[in-house]
């Protein structure tokens, strides 16, 4: 084996004519590379122990001192001692060099050490490669556009240093920039081809670390009064959904995440049924809504989906109450193609389900019992009871408030008769309880409501502040149906979204009781708001595009892309072949682009061509096999009268072409002589 490698190396060396002496790195190149090194360490998204950056950057600054101030180079012993110390520190702190964090810290320290001691061309090469590697590790921690820009900056500086070092003599800086920019612009299409067509493989080859960075706020599995309200100020994006057809109106955009049927009177949580899944029976006149959702990482499993989901995509499973959950925690963003349907019929109610959805933790107070009995006596069927209950919320003075009074140990009673103000979870909680008192199976659903339609790309972006809670009741005629008591009290919440509620609340008005004119004034925002919205929507659209094409572009997304361009039938070998062809074609284009700048500007050649044209006018053309001297002899025989000029021109041309005279002055002389022909 070793012999084989040695003979391979030997035959490779024999192929190359000679090894030129490697250029010695100049001071300017070393300093540029040190700038790149300091940048790549400083702008790295990892937050390492404080000493890592300190050591790496001080080592580089030490080298800057050596170059600029003239400090002595560290001795070999010192360098070995430093290297050993770095190894020991990393090994003791991280228990090995394996893994993302340890590997990154090790590379950072290594680049500092190598930056300090680089002397030869080879060392500089290694530092350039290390800059690229540290840039790469940065992308493992963050894939934001900012990280990408920082990485491009430092790795581009390293590339420039490499180009500069490979120039024999200091060349004008314009030339270096010209070559670097030219190479980058020719490389971009090749990168794009590789990015889109290179067959992607599902990752996790040796395990992905648990990301401690994701510990986000969001919906919790338990809902009690106030637990949704605290998300009000949270503008973090939960997901973005792009509809295939028209986007449903805001009143129909209910995104269910969790169905809570178990309660202790205050807090709602999932009960014993949570792992049972109940399929939907889709009616014949179904109108499926297809859409694609990109969920942001949340470290949770549930997936908010539009009412009512009818498909279970791979990687997810369906839970009780027609909710979807991912099989793993969402550590990175997830893209799913989903289908929902509004025309449906739920299965009939099992006994165990009915019992769970009628459960009451606290016995109702007499006031509540009397109220419910009054509704029941007036209604002929359960649907009528629901309508009357909703009518009660509308006719009595209930208020929607973003700062409700706290409730005591009989929350429903207090809410219905004393405080009468609350947020969506108060209303949903009270309404569900009242329905159960009335003997109608009811449950609480939490998720998100509405969401903002992006002006640019038309997708719906849903944020944490869009969190919402509502009720579902089971009626014998239709099965489970959605009832949103908040819509009865504060239709603004439903129609205009949470932003309007926030501005109403900020003005000190009570929601649900805002004069019509004031409402219109609020809706007609000023120019400033319009401008802000314009910028915000474009920014969000750019973010969405970035997520779609960079962060989430894995094997599945690649397949989706290949399907849209009609290449999904290609196997991997065929795809690779196509890739090779594409890159080859791009290289050909690049080559012809590069050779466009090589139009001849040889003055001597042009002057001689001029002479030949003049001779052609005299009836004498040079054959392609003829040299200048042969042609001159033949021409003199034909036209002895021109002998002197022909001889003079030919002599000068040959002397300049094959001798040492300056082509430029000779060219003008040839032109002068030719004119006198």
């Amino acid at each position: 084996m070793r012999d084989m490698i040695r003979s391979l190396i030997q035959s490779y060396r024999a192929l190359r004519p000679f090894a030129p002496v490697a250029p010695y790195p100049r001071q300017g190149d070393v300093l540029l590379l040190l700038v790149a090194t300091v940048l790549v360490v400083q702008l790295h998204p990892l937050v390492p122990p404080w000493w890592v950056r300190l050591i790496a950057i001080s080592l580089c600054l030490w080298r800057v001192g050596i170059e600029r101030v003239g400090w002595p180079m560290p001795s070999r012993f010192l360098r070995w001692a430093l290297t050993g110390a770095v190894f020991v520190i990393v090994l003791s702190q991280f228990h090995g060099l394996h893994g993302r964090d340890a590997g990154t810290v090790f590379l950072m320290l290594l680049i500092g050490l190598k930056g300090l001691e680089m002397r030869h061309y080879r060392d500089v090469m290694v530092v350039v490669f290390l800059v690229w590697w540290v840039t790469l590790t940065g992308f493992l921690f963050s894939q934001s556009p900012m990280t990408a820009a920082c990485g491009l900056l430092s790795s581009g500086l390293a590339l420039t240093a490499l180009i500069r070092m490979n120039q024999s003599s200091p060349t004008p800086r314009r030339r270096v920039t010209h070559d670097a920019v030219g190479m980058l612009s020719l490389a971009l299409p090749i990168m794009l081809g590789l990015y889109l067509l290179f067959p992607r493989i599902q990752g996790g080859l040796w395990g992905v670390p648990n990301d401690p960075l994701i510990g986000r706020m969001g919906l919790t599995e338990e809902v009690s009064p106030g637990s949704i309200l605290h998300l009000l100020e949270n503008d973090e994006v939960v997901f973005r959904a792009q509809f295939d057809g028209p986007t449903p109106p805001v009143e129909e955009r209910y995104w269910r995440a969790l169905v809570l049927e178990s309660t202790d009177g205050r807090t709602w949580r999932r009960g014993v049924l949570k792992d049972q899944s109940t399929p939907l029976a889709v009616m014949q006149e179904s109108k499926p809504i297809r859409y694609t959702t990109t969920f942001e990482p949340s470290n949770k499993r549930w997936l908010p989906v539009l009412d009512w989901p009818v498909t279970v995509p791979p990687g997810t499973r369906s839970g009780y109450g027609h909710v979807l959950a991912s099989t793993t925690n969402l550590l990175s963003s997830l893209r799913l193609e989903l289908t929902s349907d509004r025309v449906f019929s739920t299965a009939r109610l099992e006994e165990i389900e009915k019992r769970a959805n009628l459960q009451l933790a606290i016995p109702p107070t007499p006031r509540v019992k009397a109220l419910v009995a009054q509704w029941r006596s007036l209604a002929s069927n359960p649907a009528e009871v629901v309508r009357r209950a909703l009518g009660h919320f509308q006719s009595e003075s209930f208020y929607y408030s973003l700062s409700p009074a706290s409730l005591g140990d009989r929350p429903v009673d207090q809410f219905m008769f004393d405080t009468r103000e609350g947020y969506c979870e108060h209303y949903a909680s009270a309404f569900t309880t009242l329905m159960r008192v009335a003997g109608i199976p009811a449950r609480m659903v939490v998720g998100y409501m509405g969401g903002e339609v992006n002006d640019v790309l038309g997708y719906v972006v849903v944020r944490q502040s869009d969190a919402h809670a509502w009720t579902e009741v089971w009626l014998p005629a239709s099965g489970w149906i959605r009832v949103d008591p908040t819509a009865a009290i504060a239709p603004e919440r439903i129609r205009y979204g949470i932003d309007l509620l926030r501005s109403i609340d900020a003005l000190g008005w009570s929601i649900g009781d805002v004069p019509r004119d004031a409402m219109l004034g609020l809706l007609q925002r000023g120019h400033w708001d319009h401008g802000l919205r314009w910028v915000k929507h474009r920014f969000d659209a750019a973010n969405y595009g970035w997520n779609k094409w960079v962060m989430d572009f894995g094997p599945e997304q690649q397949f989706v892309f290949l399907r849209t361009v009609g290449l999904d039938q290609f196997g991997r070998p065929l795809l690779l072949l196509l890739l090779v062809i594409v890159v080859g074609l791009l290289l050909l284009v690049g080559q012809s682009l590069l050779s466009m700048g090589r139009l001849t500007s040889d003055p001597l050649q042009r002057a001689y061509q001029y002479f030949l044209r003049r001779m052609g006018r005299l009836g004498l053309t040079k054959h392609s096999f003829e040299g200048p001297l042969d042609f001159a002899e033949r021409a003199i025989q034909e036209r002895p009268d021109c002998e002197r000029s022909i001889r003079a021109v030919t002599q000068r041309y040959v002397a300049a072409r094959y001798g040492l005279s300056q082509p430029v002055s000779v060219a003008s002389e040839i032109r002068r002589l030719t004119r006198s022909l």
Partner: protein
Amino acid sequence: MADPVSIIFHRRYVYMLPTGPGFLFGFSTLAMLLVATNYNNGLAHGFCFLLAGVVIVSMLYTQRNLQGLTVSAVPAAPVFAGQRARFPLIISTFDRVPRLSLWLEKDAHPVAFSVQPGESVRRDVSVSTTRRGRVPIPAVRVASAYPLGLFFAWSRRIELARDCVVFPEPSAPLPFPDFQADRPVGSGVVRSDGDDFQGFREYRVGDSYRHIHWKSLPRTNTLQVKTFAASHDTECWFDLIHTPGPGLERQLSQLCRWIIDAEVQQLHYGLRLGPVVLAPGTGHSHKLRCLTLLALYPLTD
């Protein structure tokens, strides 16, 4: 058809291979791709592909750095055997692209050089000589690793139709042969200060001060030298047959030494190499003609 004395590098004349760092870059990029795949990282994939794209494109730049270069050989000055023959090569480019970090094989000063647009650069290729004769210009190659040093391109061997005449190595000084002993036509020492006055000519380095015509200096402002016609019996002849040996090469070396000495002493000398006879004369070009005859005298094996 004879080889040309000038050549332009066509695309097909340029070959390329990765350098050591180039191979290292390949392995490093593969490892980067593996990391990107493991972490399912789109940005890392993009970064790998961007680096790969830049390096692939750098191949075009490396090739372009050599393509279109013009290399021509100008006549080389003759040397004596044992000296290094230097062949001047003129390397120029007639397009608008500067060529940076070029290397020439067998360069007399092996350092990198660059050629700016419309500019000619002279590089000397040197070879050592051991024996007289014609030494052809060695086949050389031009190479470059610009811009990234990850690919190394070199040209086809350039074989141009130029050679260098190598005179025999002059032997140790020996007194001139006894011209009187052998005078088939008549030969002798030039008596430059005894014979008939012939005329004036311009001063040349090496002329005796005694022959300078000082009187005419204020009038002509140039140094004039009196010349004297040498009579036939004062010509000297160098004949191969009467040169001490042993061996042809030693004889030729001896002749070489005499011709150099005779030229220094401003003698009127002729050369006879068997059937080839060079009439007596003097001056630099006469010396070169004589020495070239010696250099190209048929070799005996």
